[in-house]
Each structure stands twice: as C-alpha cells, then as structure tokens.
C-alpha cells in the first residue's frame, strides 16, 4: 500500500517550528517510515514546480507554520491548500498570527523605514528600499510584496486543524501525527490540544490564592523567583488562567511565567481581551488613582496580552495611520 504523502511549509516563521519537528528525535524515523515527505523546503530540495505538478489533494496532509505577510506566502499556501486533503496550522504564528503578528502595531511604510533606514546599524543615505521589480542587464528581477497586515493562516485559506504553541510541544505533534495516520481526528476546526486552562493543571496551582489581590507587577529580573509558589502570587504576569494547557507547563516549570503561546481555550473569542480582563480584575485596590498606578507597571499591555495573537484578535491591527484595514 502506498504511504500517505505529506508536506511541510513555512511562511513568516522563526525556524523554531521546524526545529520542533526535528525535536521528535528518533521518533522522526517512525514518521519518515510511515509517510512520504513530498515537500519540505527547509530540509529537502523540492521546488514550487514539484508541488504544482501534484494532483489536487494528492498530499494527504500539509503542515504550515508561520504567519502570512507576503504575496509569495499567500500564493504558496493557496497552492498547498489545493494540493492537500488535510491542512494543519502548525504553531502560534500560523494559528493566531504569532510574534510576527506584532508587526500589525505598525504599517508597512513604518516597518520598511525602520528596517532599511532608521536602525542605527543601517547606512542607507539614499533611502533605498527593497523593490518589487528591478531592471538589471540580464532582465527583470522581482521580489514578493510585503503586506500591510500580518494574517493568521485561517484568515487567508481554509484550515482543517490547529496545532498550537510556540513551537507546538513534541507530545502534541506526536499525538496529532498518530491521530492522522490512524484516521482518528476530531471535528474539523479543532485545536489539537487539551481544552483546559493551564492554571488547572499547573504544578503550582495549590499555592494560587483564591483572590490574588495584586498590588504590584514585577518583571522576572526584578526578583528572586520562588521555584514552588504560584508565579502570579509573586507579582509576575503569569497568563496561565487565560491560556490553553497542553505544553506540560513548560515555562512555569522553568520558573518563568506563562506568556500565552498556546492561545485561548475554545470558549474565548479574543485572547488578549480575556487575559487582560483576568489580570486587571485581580488588582487589589478600589481607588482609581491607585489602580492606574498598579496597572501602570505593565509596560506594554498590547505586546503582553497579544504577544501571540494580535492578527487573530477582534481588532487585527492598529488603525491610527489612516490606512488601517488590510
């Protein structure tokens, strides 16, 4: 019997998701033995033409990591959608827009200006920006267009399942692969991870006070962190109460607060709004000025609560430039 054909592709990504696949260690051999990898540009030399030549839905499954922010990424995921039976958003960038999604706090022009002109290590007196096309003696060379707005995968194509996390935990990848190969998948659109909040399974949950009454927010370098006590009770912005579990409490076990990479549970529409609501409600003051002072210690609320999910939020991006929208 022929083996199921599989593809992996990355869009606006950091490489960590590909690394997570390699982190399957010897189990990757089982995966390789069970499937035929037909496309994985980071590891194997296949080209776009190879994908174009496939029949529609010939790939049994395609995993896509990274957010979508260029015309090339959009074309590739559209093509892969056509060629794949199942399409899985892999990692928080693809699931919710991820860290690259924070670019939505700016517009394209500001991003180009910063990267190609303003950064102190760049010397570019003529203000030369990357162009979409350029004439050289050999002909015209072209580059993909950078979008004004970063998007999560399901904002541009139809997605069947989501593997959350930054990157997705190895155990969840294994479970997902097993479910796919065994034909035991849940309903379309499911996030392939437990649907409970992290606090519920956190090893420190016994020490989480019923009413934390937060009087001060601290950043991890500002204190010696107790290795056993609930991090929120120590004044750290631990987002475990708003975040989906399934990561094995990775950060909390490493004595670091949860920053929310697994995204929300299924009942939540907007991760940032929910996390913000959970944290703000716990402030231990009823005085307007004092509340503002305590919350003022949170330096960057948008970057903190939407660290992995700004494009998938209800607002998607900033609107102050007079050219919001897409």
């Amino acid at each position: 019997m022929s083996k199921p054909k599989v593809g992996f592709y990355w869009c606006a990504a950091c490489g960590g998701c590909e690394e997570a696949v390699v982190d399957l260690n010897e189990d990757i051999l089982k995966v390789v033995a069970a499937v035929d990898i037909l496309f994985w540009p980071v590891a194997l030399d296949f080209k776009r033409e190879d994908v174009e030549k496939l029949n529609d839905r010939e790939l049994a499954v395609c995993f896509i990591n990274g957010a979508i922010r260029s015309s090339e990424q959009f074309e590739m995921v559209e093509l892969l959608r056509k060629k794949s039976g199942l399409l899985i958003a892999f990692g928080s960038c693809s699931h919710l827009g991820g860290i690259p999604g924070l670019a939505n706090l700016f517009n394209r022009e500001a991003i180009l200006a910063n990267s190609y002109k303003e950064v102190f290590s760049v010397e570019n007196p003529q203000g030369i920006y990357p162009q979409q096309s350029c004439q050289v003696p050999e002909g015209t060379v072209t580059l993909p267009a950078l979008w004004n707005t970063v998007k999560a995968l399901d904002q541009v194509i139809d997605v069947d399942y989501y593997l959350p996390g930054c990157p997705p935990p190895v155990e969840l990848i294994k479970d997902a692969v097993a479910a796919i190969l065994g034909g035991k998948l849940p309903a379309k659109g499911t996030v392939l991870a437990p649907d409970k909040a992290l606090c519920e399974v956190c090893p420190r949950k016994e020490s989480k006070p019923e009413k934390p009454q937060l009087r001060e927010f601290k950043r991890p370098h500002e204190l010696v962190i107790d290795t056993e006590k609930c991090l929120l009770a120590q004044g750290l912005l631990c987002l475990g109460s708003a975040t989906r579990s399934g990561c094995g409490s990775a950060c909390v076990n490493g004595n670091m607060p949860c920053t929310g990479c697994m995204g929300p549970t299924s009942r939540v529409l907007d991760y940032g709004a929910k996390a913000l609501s959970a944290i703000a409600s716990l402030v231990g003051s009823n005085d307007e000025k004092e509340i503002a002072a305590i919350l003022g210690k949170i330096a960057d609320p948008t970057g903190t609560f939407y660290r992995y999910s700004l494009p998938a939020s209800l607002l998607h991006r900033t609107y102050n430039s007079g050219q919001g929208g897409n």
Partner: protein
Amino acid sequence: MSDKNKANSGNFEPRIVAFFCNWCTYTAADLAGTARMTYAPNARVVRVMCSGRLDPQFILMALREGADGVLIGGCHPGDCHYQEGNYKTLRRFTLLKRLLQDMGIENERVRMEWIAASEGDRVQKVMNEMTEQLKKLGPLHLEPVPIDTVHKKVEESVAQAEGVKI
C-alpha cells in the same frame, strides 16, 4: 452612501453601543425617558445586570461590528448592587483604555461613566456630549474583512508596494 461620505457631507450620525447596568444607569435612562428629557438618539442601549458583567470582548466586538463608540454606564463606586462589580469594571477599563490607545482607537470612542438611578439629566448630558464628540471624530472603520475580499486587497497591496521608491 458609505459612512465616510456621510462624514464628509456633515451628516454622519455616529452609532453608539451603550452597556448600562440594570440597577443604576439603565434606571436613570428610563427616568430620563419618563421625564421626557430629549437627547441624541444615537445609542443602542444594552441592559446588563452589572457593569462588571461587561467582558472587554463585548466592547471590541461592538467596535468590530460597526459601532463608532461604546458607552459603559455603572453605579457610582460604593453603590454597586453586587458590591464589587463596578470596581472590576474600573480596573479592566483602566487597562483596556491603554490597549485601545495602542490600537489607534481614540480615547473618546470608549467612555465609562458612573450614573446613579436618579441622574436622568446626566444620561442626557453624556449621550449628547458623546454623540457630538463622535461626530467630530467621524466614523470608525473596523468592519470585518470577509475572506473573499482578501484577493482584492492583495492586488492593491502589490500595486501600493510598487510605488515604494528606490
């Protein structure tokens, strides 16, 4: 005619979603009504049992779905029917306001007011004031973007980027 054109021609009527607490502000709005006080008819009032019930998601959703502004009305501090609810509102709103600022949504578009059951005149004043402010600001364009318009936007995006100079 689109909202934008309406704004340009000076006839823009802002849409306000007002979340009023059952015990104080909603009662005050009722009182304003029975006392025949007239005020700008721009708000659609949603009665919630307590301003503390107001999930920040509701506010973002209202803006997303076409509101130009959101008004939150609750009992004065100390007067909450459920004792603590309006303090939670205050805490959440304090943080949410900073987030909205980051997102480029002007301060005046989301407003929180403590209005007691007897303060019908305050409802009148706040509604009128907010409507005026929003008229000056113009419409907020946060309509959801349907997937099938993405293609078109991509083409526009490509065209725009072509103009970026060397």
